[in-house]
């Protein structure tokens, strides 16, 4: 039977700090992104080099797309967070599909431990992204709307508003959970699916599923970043709507 583990396996412990295989992959993805950025913006010019035009295509495309979702007025503020979410998730998702990731490893106590594991196929990563996104949403909401933003959660004007505030708090917490589990569930399920299919029929048959997973990787990155954009938009327009209403 192929090895399937819900939790990321630990490779070792460095200075008392546990190193999991998905953490290793995260670092690799970070390295790829940083290297690409460095190469793309090393010699910036108005007449772009090939890699610069790729970067322009990606960044410019994301910028215009998300300014349509989050509104033109705040996109400058939100863009680093949203675009980083998208780029990190999509590269991490696709990195998990590379051959060798999840299959190259060693045995410890009769148990297989892969050296690399898709970064987003670990709840720690997705939960970290979700927590960062939701905290950032609150931060940007507070920053743009001001102290009035707390009225969204704690409102003592009337019982209905108070109750709505409690619901809002619950909804923010549930956002973290849904963000984290949606991404983790999709990517982990994809990897399990690929493992099982490859175990049953090693040749040709996994190909369509691989294509599907590439597509899912893109869609999940898009969903995560777009939902963040939408929530950000709601957060910064919340106080405005309240004061007008």
């Amino acid at each position, binding site marked *: 039977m192929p090895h399937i*583990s*819900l*939790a*990321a396996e630990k490779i070792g412990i460095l200075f008392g*700090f*546990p190193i*999991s295989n998905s*953490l290793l992959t*995260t*670092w690799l993805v*970070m390295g790829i*992104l*940083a290297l*690409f*950025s*460095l190469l*793309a*913006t090393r010699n*910036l*010019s*108005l007449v*772009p080099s090939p890699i*610069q035009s790729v*970067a*322009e295509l990606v*960044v*410019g495309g994301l*910028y215009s797309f998300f300014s349509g979702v989050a509104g033109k007025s705040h996109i400058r503020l939100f*863009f*680093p*967070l949203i*675009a*980083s979410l998208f*780029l*990190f998730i999509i590269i991490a998702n696709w990195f998990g599909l590379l051959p060798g990731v999840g299959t190259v490893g060693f045995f410890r106590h009769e148990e297989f431990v892969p050296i690399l594991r898709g970064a987003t196929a*670990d*709840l*720690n*990563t997705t*939960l*970290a*992204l979700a*927590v*960062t996104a939701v905290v950032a949403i609150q931060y940007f909401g507070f920053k743009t709307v001001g102290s009035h933003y707390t009225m969204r959660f704690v409102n003592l004007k009337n019982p209905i508003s108070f109750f709505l505030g409690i619901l809002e708090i619950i909804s923010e917490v549930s956002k973290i959970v849904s963000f984290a589990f949606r991404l983790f569930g999709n990517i982990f399920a994809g990897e399990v699916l690929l493992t099982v299919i490859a175990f049953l029929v090693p040749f040709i048959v996994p190909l369509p599923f691989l294509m599907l997973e590439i597509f899912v990787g893109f869609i999940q990155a898009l969903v995560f970043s777009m939902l963040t954009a939408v929530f950000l938009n709601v957060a910064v327009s919340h106080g405005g709507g309240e004061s007008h209403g």
Partner: protein
Amino acid sequence: MEQLGIEPTLLLAQIINFSIIVFVLTRLLYKPILGILEKRKKEIEESLARAEKLKREEEKFKQKGEKLLDEARREGRKILEEAKKQGKLAEKEIIAEAHNEASDIVKKGKTEVVRMEEEMEKGVRQQAVTLAIAMAKRLLTAVLSEKDQHRVISEQLKELEKVVE
């Protein structure tokens, strides 16, 4: 939580990792790329505006040139016409002058001719008188005495003087 693989240390590590990604990508990718995109947009807009301006200026110059050419042509025609007119005027003047001169010459010639005729007549008369005197002298010496001669001659001379005058 244990079974899902969630560990606080790893969770914290991933949060820090993602924060680093946001920071690094903002510094290395978004800012420079968006900056250059903005710069290029501005550049393109500026060059388009410049091209439009140049085009408009060119058209203006063209119109100006055409106007100038038109004016020059009109002026040239005017000058030509004036020159023709002046030429005709000069022609007329010259012809008139020539006419005058010619009539002057003719007049002068006529008076000269009249004067010469008179002179000739005078000469002819004088010659006729001397001829007559000589003839008379010869005839009279044969016929008349010296005394009669003198008388007749003087009488004749008196008469001749009357004629000459």
